[in-house]
């Protein structure tokens, strides 16, 4: 116990912790619970047993007497305040502290103020006149994002923050904004904060009127970051990270700064209908009636594509409409083009096609294997978490053809040739088995097929597979030893594993590795796919796939039908439906004549070889969108939907966490929440629905899906729930396979490497291999991020290539280039990059004008129909 002023409290943590727990106000400007720090500002000095100490760095010890108010402290604080005033113009929290100390000026000379400002960056703003050298910007950057943008330069009274180059925009900043959230004065601030209270340090009165704050879920990847959206009127003024799982206040350049799209002039504000070849505005009634008429007339030839950007409730409705309303299982979602192989592979190996663990487990792992994921760009908040774990001492193995940011800091980087995952993963397993780095008890108790697998692996030594993968055998052995000797080996994987000819099988091989070392069913381990879109997990969970109903239930199973049919009031069709690539083919062949596409820009994001002819052959293409996307331009009817900021519902993140989506903005005039549109369409096609709102839809989902039985909006409001949630009082499930592997025993898959037929081309004609992916600043087809200042940070697409290839091809950095594959061509600007190995080139797919996906061929994952985006033979030349 500690005596704190006039009371007795428990000693725990630092003196500052004790004071804060007791509600005693001790200002600490250089310490923040998220990053620690402290000891610099000396504002939190208190008397402990008669000695003055900094509360933030002094451990609380039993028996101490702590005094937070005394004449000596008052005099000290007043003088310290005057020194601070001499150094920096009071602003923000620091100004409040100074005012609280009665400091409204200084008797010291204000010679130490620095007047430097920097507004070179689209988002970050620096105004060093208010900098109190607390170093929270540096701590935030180092200990949250791991970017090391800031340091302190000079010494003594010349000490001031530095970011390296002259202009801030030329620094290493990735604009996550963590520093702006922690800076106590606004010296490091951002566009949104500045706009909110213009020049706050000179404002005499209180700050701008308080904005409403709505907590909702980010829409820019599958991490599911919680946003605190600050709203004034019908505008988002600022976005903060909510201090809850999974992001604990952190965000990325997309989540924090890309919100202007919601009120962008390009937003669709009225339904459009094609007349005389052109899309023209029409009324909602006319549009709904036209869709209903066409879909009724073409019943049996209709297919639906759901949206991973829409809510669970909307996805549920779409497949319910297709199945129960229109009598077809022709419904799919964009998981088909990303993680369908994960779901398939993990279901076969483990019994559940979703992440086994949670993002929080990254903090607990001692070895992290990142396979085919550029996490720091595609899933920045998880990427930062991995970086932090590694900077704290976890070991890192990265499988990636590119030297990504994580690869560059890895203990072992396995830079394989694109398309050779299977050979590499087999060689890793070979080392684990032959060097006896396996968990024998786990293998014996929880797996099956090990003996066959052991024999299969015999001729997959890394020395043999090196010829296929291009990876030095010593590195493979080093990686296997790290993973095999780990106490808590954790995997994450991305589309670099799945979007291949042998994608599903690669995922099974990842599962094999976890099964071999017992890396399953406990804290800090697991097989954890990083889901790409915000609700791609949910779209699949909700049954937007042709072979499985909501909750991965088979429509052929009688007990499943018995569960669904009373709720749906209609028979569940049993005939298997078509996958997305099959739908395009069927459209070309005439058996699919109408398609409903909810919020997906397949023209840009699906392989051109599949899409164009299929869509062109349709009699009726309906696209529900927020912008006139490339796909919407080809539609017969366009329905204006709502963005994630304008509607209620839920998303399910990559860690199976069902989280609330709450409308921060009123609906855009003329547009409607997507669930309302779907209900109107269902009613117009003869299948009216009773819902008063998304909460009712979730209640229905809970009735048909056992794993959702305990899910309700009331239960979700406490911070989301990780499925399965079998009962209303169940806390959710952070880790799967704890007691036993879900399928009974984990199955070892024996898969031999087979080169993709897509690579069977004349190497002289197509000497390079193209791989594709995301860049940090943009999301998917770019409709939202390219309508933001992220476009200033990354204005155009770049073909990344190795210097050796560039030299050989006579291509200079910044040259316009044309990329040709056997299937099409694309155009971009060349960027010579040390990230690239010779022979491999990279393009993103964010830019419609590049046409990256026109290069992609017709090869699909042979088990899950996912297109082979990650390896294409190409030739590059100057344009």
């Amino acid at each position, binding site marked *: 116990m500690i005596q704190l002023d006039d009371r007795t409290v428990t000693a725990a943590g630092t003196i500052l912790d004790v004071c804060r727990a007791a509600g005693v106000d001790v200002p600490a400007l250089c310490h923040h619970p998220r990053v620690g720090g402290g000891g610099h500002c*000396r504002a939190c000095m208190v008397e402990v047993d008669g000695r003055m100490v900094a509360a933030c760095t002094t451990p609380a010890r039993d028996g101490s007497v702590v005094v937070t108010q005394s004449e000596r402290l008052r005099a000290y604080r007043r003088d310290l305040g005057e*020194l601070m005033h001499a150094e920096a113009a009071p602003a923000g929290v620091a100004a409040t502290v100074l005012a609280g100390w009665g400091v409204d000026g200084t008797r010291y000379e204000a010679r130490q103020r620095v007047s430097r400002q920097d507004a070179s960056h689209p988002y970050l703003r620096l105004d060093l006149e208010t900098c109190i050298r607390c170093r929270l910007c540096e701590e935030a950057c180092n200990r949250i994002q791991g970017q*090391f943008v800031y340091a302190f330069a000079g*010494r003594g009274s010349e*000490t001031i923050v530095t970011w390296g180059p002259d202009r801030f925009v030329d620094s*290493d900043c990735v604009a996550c904004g963590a520093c702006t959230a922690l800076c106590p004065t606004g010296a490091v601030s951002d566009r949104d904060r500045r706009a909110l209270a213009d020049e706050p340090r000179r404002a005499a009165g209180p700050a701008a009127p308080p904005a409403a704050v709505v907590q909702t879920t980010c829409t820019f990847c599958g991490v599911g970051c919680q946003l605190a959206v600050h709203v004034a009127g019908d505008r988002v003024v600022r976005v903060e990270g909510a201090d809850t799982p999974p992001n604990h206040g952190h965000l990325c350049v997309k989540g924090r700064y890309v919100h202007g799209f919601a009120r962008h002039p390009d937003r669709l504000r009225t339904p459009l209908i094609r007349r005389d070849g052109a899309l023209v505005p029409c009324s909602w009634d006319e549009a709904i009636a036209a869709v209903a008429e066409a879909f009724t007339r073409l019943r049996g030839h209709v297919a639906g594509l759901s949206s991973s950007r829409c809510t669970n409730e909307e996805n549920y409705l779409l497949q319910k409409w297709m199945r129960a309303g229109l009598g077809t299982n022709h419904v799919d979602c964009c998981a088909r083009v990303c993680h369908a192989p994960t779901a398939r592979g993990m279901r076969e190996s483990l019994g559940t096609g979703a992440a086994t663990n949670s993002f929080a487990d990254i903090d607990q792992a001692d070895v992290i294997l990142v396979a085919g994921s550029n996490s720091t760009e595609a899933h920045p908040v998880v990427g930062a978490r991995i970086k932090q774990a590694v900077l704290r001492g976890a070991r890192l193995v990265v499988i990636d053809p590119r030297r990504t940011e994580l690869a*560059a800091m890895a203990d072992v980087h396995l830079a394989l040739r694109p398309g050779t995952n299977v050979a590499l993963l087999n060689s890793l397993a070979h080392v684990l088995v032959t060097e006896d780095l396996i968990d024998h008890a786990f293998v014996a108790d929880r797996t099956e097929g090990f003996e066959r697998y052991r024999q299969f692996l015999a001729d997959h030594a890394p020395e043999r597979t090196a010829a296929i993968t291009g990876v030095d055998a010593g590195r493979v052995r080093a990686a296997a030893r790290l993973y095999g000797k780990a106490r808590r080996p954790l995997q994450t994987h991305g589309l670099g594993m799945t979007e291949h000819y042998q994608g599903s099988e690669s995922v099974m091989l990842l599962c094999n590795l976890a099964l071999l070392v017992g890396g399953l069913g406990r804290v800090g381990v697991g097989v954890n796919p990083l889901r790409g879109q915000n609700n791609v997990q949910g779209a699949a969970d909700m049954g937007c796939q042709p072979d499985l109903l909501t909750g991965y239930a088979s429509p052929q199973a009688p007990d499943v039908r018995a569960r669904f049919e009373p709720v749906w009031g209609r028979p569940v069709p049993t005939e298997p439906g078509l996958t997305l690539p099959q739908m395009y083919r069927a459209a070309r062949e005439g058996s699919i004549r109408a398609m409903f596409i909810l919020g997906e820009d397949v023209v840009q994001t699906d392989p051109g070889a599949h899409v164009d002819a299929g869509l062109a052959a349709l009699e009726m293409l309906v696209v529900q969108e927020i912008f006139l996307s490339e796909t919407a331009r080809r539609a017969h009817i366009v329905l204006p939907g709502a963005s994630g900021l304008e509607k209620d519902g839920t998303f399910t993140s990559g860690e199976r966490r069902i989280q609330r989506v709450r409308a921060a903005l009123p609906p855009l005039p003329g547009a409607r929440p997507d669930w309302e549109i779907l209900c109107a369409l269902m009613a117009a096609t003869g299948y009216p629905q009773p819902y008063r709102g998304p909460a009712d839809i979730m209640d229905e989902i809970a009735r048909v899906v056992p794993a959702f039985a305990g899910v309700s909006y009331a239960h979700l409001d406490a911070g989301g729930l990780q499925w399965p949630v079998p009962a209303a009082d169940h806390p959710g499930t952070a880790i799967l396979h704890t007691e036993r592997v879900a399928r009974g025993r984990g199955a070892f898959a024996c898969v031999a490497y087979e080169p993709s037929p897509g690579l069977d081309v004349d190497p002289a004609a197509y000497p390079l291999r193209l791989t594709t992916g995301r860049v940090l600043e943009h999301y998917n087809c770019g409709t939202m991020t390219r309508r933001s200042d992220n476009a200033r940070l990354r204005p155009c697409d770049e073909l990344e290539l190795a210097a050796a290839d560039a030299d050989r091809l006579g291509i200079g950095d910044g040259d316009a280039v044309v990329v040709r594959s056997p299937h099409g061509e694309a155009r971009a600007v060349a960027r010579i990059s040390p990230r690239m190995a010779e022979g491999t080139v990279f393009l993103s797919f964010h830019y419609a004008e590049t046409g990256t996906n026109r290069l992609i061929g017709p090869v699909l994952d042979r088990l899950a129909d996912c297109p082979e985006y990650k390896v294409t033979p190409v030739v590059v030349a100057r344009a």
Partner: protein
Amino acid sequence: MHPASGMNPVLEWARRHQREAPDENLIDDLRAGMSVDQAAERQGMPRAAVHGVQSYYEYLRHPAPLRVCAGTACRFAGGWMTSAALPGTAEVRCLGRCYEGRPCRTDQTPAPIPRRALVDEPVVLRHVLGAGGADPERLYRSVARPAAEEILATLAASGLRGRGGAAFPTAAKWEAARRVDAPVKYVVANGDEGDPGSYVDRLLLEEDPHAVLAGMCACARAIDSSGASGQNVVRGVVYVRAEYPAAAARACRAIAEATEAGLLPPGFAIEVHVGAGSYVCGEETALLRGIEGLRGEAQPRPPYPTECGLHGWPTVVQNVETLAIVPWLLESGRKPASKAFCLSGAVASPAVVEAGFGISLAELLARGGGGAAPRMPCPPWKMALIGGPMGRVLPVAAFDTPLGYDTLPGLGHGGVVVFDAAVSARDLAGHLFEFAASESCGACTPCRVGTAQLGHRPDRAALERLLDTLELGSMCGFGQGVPRPIRDLLQHFPDEMFPARGAR
């Protein structure tokens, strides 16, 4: 292998981004003339962090072929000029040549360091008085013989206290490091003798380095808690300030000699780190950051280096003079009763003088320094600055004060600069203000802002208010210590510090 706590993310980032671990650290690269970008690339360091380091150390901020000493003795010797008056030069504090009695510059060959003992059996200077010097084999043997527990017990019984200035009991520090179970530990010799007016550590490093190294060996053995298995590693670092190039070279040579002769304990390797000009690096937490190649800024304590020091591992930082005594202490089992004092300024014959604790300043100056400098009028002395710029000012009337850690708090490392009546209290205060402002590391607000304001206080009350804030609020001993000699000046020379209105 990582320590449980205290990992610096910048260093781990750098370690992971180095193409191959370079032999030189960042400070060496920058000293060798690399640009920020070049050094960042080679060290795998973030550019901003490299800029932070480059702009911190005096030798890197202001590279100059020729430096003039602005230490206390040089500053008040006749004919001193600021570097501003000498184009192409930069200042340095201090070169440890205070005994030369002239403004020293780096282009002059240093004179040999005079030394003498006022005790029959000198300890600190035992190898540097007269001919012969140390017998390295005997030195290392004396520390190799006793068991770790015995070393600690002997040390504790001797009552040895650190001589760098803080006077912390040495045995307690070593025991604290021993108690922590860690696979890696460090022993660091603090040769950052920054106090202007002190030069005994330079003398020891240049002329008796094996005594220091043997002391480090004793420490390495004492703090290694791995027992007979010997699984754990203890490493040694000798931190030598940039201002002492000959000391650094000699220390390197001595390490090579001892290593070659197989005199170091098994597995114990020692390397030399050369500083780049920062007084605060003498503070132990700042010194460790310097060895890591970072800005030499003080860190909040706890955690103390004995739990979380160099690269996060338990570390003992021990002053050179302290370490040099340890072999004698282990061999003789006696209590050290004498200390080295460095005399300079207005004394006839400046020298390192070993004298017993409790000797009065007057006696020390008379017997050890040959009395007043001959050119001085009589009575020649006005005051003395003892223990450097964070030490004490004694007026001549108090020269009978016995010199000891308890009798004169602030005794510090034992440098004594004597001033005659030609130096006003205001001049000395101005020098100390300038020193404080130039050498503050900038890590904490009171010291960063306050030291630059010291020289501009309009009256005594305003100055005392600032001294209170520095003393109460500063993070480390630098800011806390700056007020100490100033308060002495205010007490003993109030009228010189702030002349009464109209008296000027």
